[in-house]
């Protein structure tokens, strides 16, 4: 695609968002920076072969996800997505009585956390996230619905406990 100068512009434009995404994947700021360094090193190697400049952010996210998976030997996600169920939400440990939002996000299973990060941090639509995660748009909607339900129910419960 572009020149060395364009690569530098891309690093400056996206490194903050990618760092935050990496941080919320691994919850360690040192590892997050390592992941980012490796991801941009891989991106540089493939930079001149990039054919779709418009989707460069999604391309970088994919590289970062692969790097994270490679480093932590994460197995392919095997979650089975069904139809959204109003009452089916991921469980949060009962010991998490007084957790704040930060801890709650960290407690979400990765299958729910990842699409939530892609949408809230990356600004991607459900269709775009489906493409990145290799699943269907409906499945992404289900995961996002459940993730937000989990966060909201815990926050509401915490609010009630505080006011009691």
């Amino acid at each position: 695609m572009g020149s060395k100068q364009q690569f530098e512009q891309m690093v400056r434009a996206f490194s903050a968002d990618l760092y935050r995404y990496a941080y919320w994947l691994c919850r360690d700021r040192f590892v997050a920076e390592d992941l980012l360094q490796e991801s941009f090193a891989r991106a540089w190697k493939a930079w001149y072969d990039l054919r779709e400049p418009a989707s460069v952010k999604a391309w970088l996210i994919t590289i970062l996800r692969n790097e994270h998976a490679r480093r932590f030997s994460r197995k392919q996600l095997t979650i089975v997505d069904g139809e959204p169920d109003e009452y089916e939400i991921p469980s949060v440990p009962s010991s998490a009585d007084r957790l704040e939002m930060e801890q709650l996000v960290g407690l979400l299973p990765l299958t729910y956390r990842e699409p939530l990060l892609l949408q809230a941090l990356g600004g991607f639509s459900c269709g775009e996230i489906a493409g990145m995660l290799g699943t269907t748009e409906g499945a992404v909607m289900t995961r996002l619905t459940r993730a937000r339900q989990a966060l909201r129910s815990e926050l509401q419960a915490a609010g009630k406990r505080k006011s009691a």
Partner: protein
Amino acid sequence: MMNCLEFHRLTLADPRRLPEEARSHANDCAGCLAFARSVDESETALERTLAVAVPEGLADRILLRQSAQRRASWKALALAASIVLAVAAGVIAISDGDSASQARLAIEHVLDEPQSLTTHYNADPKRFAEIVHDLGGNVREPIGRVRYIKRCPVEQGSGWHIVFETPQGLATLILVPDRPVTAAATANLGRWTARVEPIRGGYYALVTDSAGSNSAVNKIIKQRIDWQT
């Protein structure tokens, strides 16, 4: 026709991209309007939470590493070309390591990673002994309280970045395997001093914030670590 359940589902799936039909449903349904407002509030809290602080100089460090790798690639190509030429001439020239240049790079590495001097990370003395052992050395006595151990990219590969406490203050040890240097060398940059010493198969670089402390700490390292060179 949209119902309340469908509105809730769409709002929870992507509150920023509600279709027009959902918006007009909320205008006619007080319950759904309240629900949408409450989701907006938790979404704001979520966005605030996710926006963790980004380390200062992150983009610069990424670009610096890319630039170092590009230089290393060119050096590798140049070395390969020089070997081809030397073989063609019947002479084999092998480039020895440039110790002074490695010492300067070690100081730059420490300056590029300032958090190594202010944070504790992986600070396990056993881990330090294992790393030294992997490099063919043996820690006879602790060199000081280890407070930071991290695998870092260095020119042409990776090495270990270790920070430990000494009576002379904090000292950084960069251990680089598989990168032989033929001689010891010292470099200075500002108030920083780095001393490179060859060890079996590679080298270590000791970085301190003064020449005097560097010499004293290097003496401790030599006394307490048997590098079996």
